[in-house]
C-alpha cells in the first residue's frame, strides 16, 4: 500500500511509528472534566485546558520521534459515547457494570441516527496546525458504535449498523475535505459476532470509506481473530492495527497459514502493563513480524490506546518502541 501513501503525498520511512489514539489525561484535566460534568466549570475553560494538554502531547510525540501523530483524545471520554453525544438519534443510559467496580454509561439509539456536522474536524485542524508530521483522524466505527449501544429504534443490528455507517461516512468525508490523509476507524468490537462480518460489518465499512481519498487504518483489539481471519481481510481498509504483544503473538502463526495481504500496524508494547518493555523485547517482536510480512507492509505502534497508563510510562514505552524501530531500520538497510 506504499503506492497509496505516495499518491496522497505522504513520505513515511520504513516501519512508520504511530500510536492508537488516546493518551493519559493529566489529573487536573480529569478534575476539570468532572467539574464540567457537574456544571461547575464552563465549557470554554474546559476547552482551553484540553487544548493546552493537546499541545503538550503533540510536543511529546515529536520529541519521542513518532512518524504519524494523533491528537491524544483529551476531549473524549468513552469512545462510543463521545460520538453518540455528537450524533443525532442518541440518548445516554444510566450506569451499566463492566467488571469489578467499573461502571459506564452506554449510548441508546432512540431515533434516526444522523450526522449533525463535523465532530472531530476542528480538533484535527488544531493538532495538525501544531505538528510538522502528519496527524491521523480517529473515528469510532459503525459496528462498534452499534454493538456498544442499546437499540430502541432500528429493527435489527444490521439496520442500526448501516445507519451509523452512513452518518460516520459524513464525518470521514469532512475529515478528508479538511486535509486528513490517514484515517483510522476503530472497530474493537468487530469480532463480537463473527457471522455478522460477512453479513453486514464489511458492507458498513465500505459505506464509511467509499469514495474517500485517504489511507484507512482499522484498529481492532481484544479480538478473537481466529474466528474472523482471513475473512476480515475483506474489510475495505489499507491497514489493520492489531493488538499483538498482549496476545502472545499467536497471530503470527495464523499469518503463516494464510498470507496477510494488507499493511499491518503491529502492536509491540502492552498498554495494560506498568512495565516498560526494553528495546530488545520490542526488537524481537518486530523481527518476529518480519518473518511473515514484508518491511513495506509493517507499521509499529502500541497495542491499544495508552490512556490508562501514566504519562511517564507512556513516554518511556514510546521511547523504547521508537528506539527499537530505529535499530531494525538500520539492520534492514545494511
Amino acid at each position, binding site marked *: 500500500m506504499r503506492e497509496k501513501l505516495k499518491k496522497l503525498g505522504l513520505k513515511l520511512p520504513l516501519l512508520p511509528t504511530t500510536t492508537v489514539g488516546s493518551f493519559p489525561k493529566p489529573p487536573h484535566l480529569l478534575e476539570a472534566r468532572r467539574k464540567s460534568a457537574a456544571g461547575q466549570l464552563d465549557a470554554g475553560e474546559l476547552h482551553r485546558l484540553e487544548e493546552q494538554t493537546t499541545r503538550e502531547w503533540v510536543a511529546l510525540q515529536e520529541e519521542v520521534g513518532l512518524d504519524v501523530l494523533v491528537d491524544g483524545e483529551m476531549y473524549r471520554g468513552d469512545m462510543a459515547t463521545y460520538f453518540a453525544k455528537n450524533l443525532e438519534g442518541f440518548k445516554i*443510559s*444510566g*450506569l451499566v457494570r*463492566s467488571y469489578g*467496580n467499573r461502571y459506564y454509561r452506554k449510548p441508546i439509539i432512540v431515533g434516526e441516527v444522523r450526522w449533525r456536522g463535523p465532530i472531530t474536524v476542528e480538533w484535527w485542524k488544531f493538532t495538525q496546525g501544531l505538528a510538522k508530521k502528519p496527524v491521523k483522524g480517529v473515528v469510532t466505527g459503525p459496528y462498534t458504535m452499534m*454493538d456498544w449501544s*442499546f*437499540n*430502541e429504534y432500528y429493527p435489527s443490528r444490521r439496520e442500526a449498523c448501516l445507519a451509523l455507517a452512513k452518518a460516520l461516512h459524513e464525518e470521514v468525508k469532512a475529515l478528508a475535505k479538511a486535509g486528513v490523509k490517514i484515517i483510522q476507524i476503530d472497530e474493537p468490537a468487530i469480532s*463480537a459476532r463473527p457471522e455478522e462480518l460477512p453479513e453486514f460489518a464489511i458492507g458498513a465499512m465500505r459505506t464509511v470509506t467509499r469514495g474517500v481519498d485517504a489511507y484507512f487504518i482499522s484498529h481492532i483489539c481484544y479480538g478473537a481473530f481466529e474466528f474472523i481471519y482471513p475473512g476480515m481481510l475483506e474489510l475495505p481498509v489499507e491497514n489493520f492495527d492489531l493488538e499483538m504483544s498482549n496476545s502472545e503473538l499467536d497471530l503470527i502463526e495464523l499469518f503463516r497459514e494464510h498470507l496477510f495481504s494488507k499493511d499491518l500496524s503491529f502492536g509491540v508494547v502492552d498498554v495494560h502493563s506498568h512495565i516498560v518493555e526494553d528495546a530488545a523485547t520490542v526488537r524481537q517482536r518486530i523481527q518476529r513480524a518480519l518473518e511473515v510480512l514484508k518491511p513495506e507492509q509493517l507499521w509499529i505502534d502500541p497495542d491499544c490506546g495508552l490512556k490508562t497508563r501514566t504519562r511517564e510510562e507512556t513516554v518511556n514505552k514510546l521511547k523504547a518502541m521508537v528506539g527499537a524501530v530505529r535499530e531494525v531500520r538500520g539492520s534492514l538497510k545494511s
Partner: protein
Amino acid sequence: MELLAASTGSYPRIGNRPEQQRHRQAYAQLERGEISNEEFERVQNGVTREVIEEQVRAGLDVVTDGQVGWYDPISHFARKLEGCEIDGLLRFFDTNSYFRQPIVTGEIRRREPILEGEFIFAKGVSPKPVKPVVTGPYTLAKLSINRRGVGLAELVHEFARVIAQEVSELAKAGAELIQIDEPAILKNRNEFGLLKNALEEVAAGKGKAKLALYTYFGDATPLYDKLVKLPVDVVGFDFTYSPGLPKLIARLGCEKGLGLGLIDGRNTKLEGEREVIEVLKLIAPTIGSERVYLNPSCGLGEYLPREVAFKKLQNMVAIAKKAGELI
C-alpha cells in the same frame, strides 16, 4: 398451564439515585482499605435485600439474590476451588462485561460451600421463592485455561463433581428450583456429550429440587431436540438469538418445563405485549409441562441500568398476567 414471571440471574447492584450508590462506594472503600470485609459484607447484604425487594415489587413469582456478591459467573466459583488460579480479564461471550479467567493447574476440589450461605441469606429475606443460579460445569471448564495436561473431559468431570455438591447442599437448604447456566454449549455443539455427562452427574444430587438448565448468548435451535432430553426439569432459552425457536417448539413440542427468554435482557427497549403473546400462543398448545416461566433472556446485572431493569421486569409481569388470561 401455569405461566410464572421469573428472574434469570443477576440484577444491577447500583442505580442512579444517591442511596443506590452504596455498593460502589463501599467497594471502593474496601479496595482502599478503609473498611473491613465484614463492613463491606454488611453493605452487600443490604443491597441483596434491596434487589430482592425490587424484584418482588416488580411482581415476579420467582426471584434470585441478584448475584450482588459475584465478581463474575466464572471466578465466583473458581476462586474458591483448589487447583484453580485466577488470571486476567477476558470478555464474557459477546458482551461488554468481563470475567477473570481461571487457570487450572491442579485437581479441582472444593474447599468450602460456595453458594449455600448466599442462598440461605436470600431465602431468609425474600417473601417469594428464591432460585439459586449455578454456573454449569461445562461452561466453567470451557472458559478456563487448562494447564493440567489432562483433557477437557476430565476438567468438566471435576467441575461437575463440585457443582453436584453445590446443588445437593442448595436442595437440602430448601431450594425448590435450581438453575444451571451453560451458555458455552451453544457455540460448541460438537461437545454436547461432555455437557450431558456432566449434567447426569449434577442431577444425581438434586434430591427434591427441580433443575433448570439455561442457555443464552447463542442460537439454541440446532441443539433444541438434544437439550430437552437432558436429565433436567426445565430448559431455558435466549430467544433474542434464536428467531427460529418458537416454530421449532411448536413443531416438536416440549414435555419439560420451559424458561422462555422472550424478554431481551441486553436492550433497554421494552417488549411489546403483542409480539410476546403471539409467541406464547404459538407454543402453548404443544407444551406438556404444567409450568412455564417467562423471564429475561439473561441476567440483567451487567447489561442494563438499574432503572431500566426494574421497568423491564414490571413490563414482563404485565405481559405474563395478560398472557395467563388469554392462554
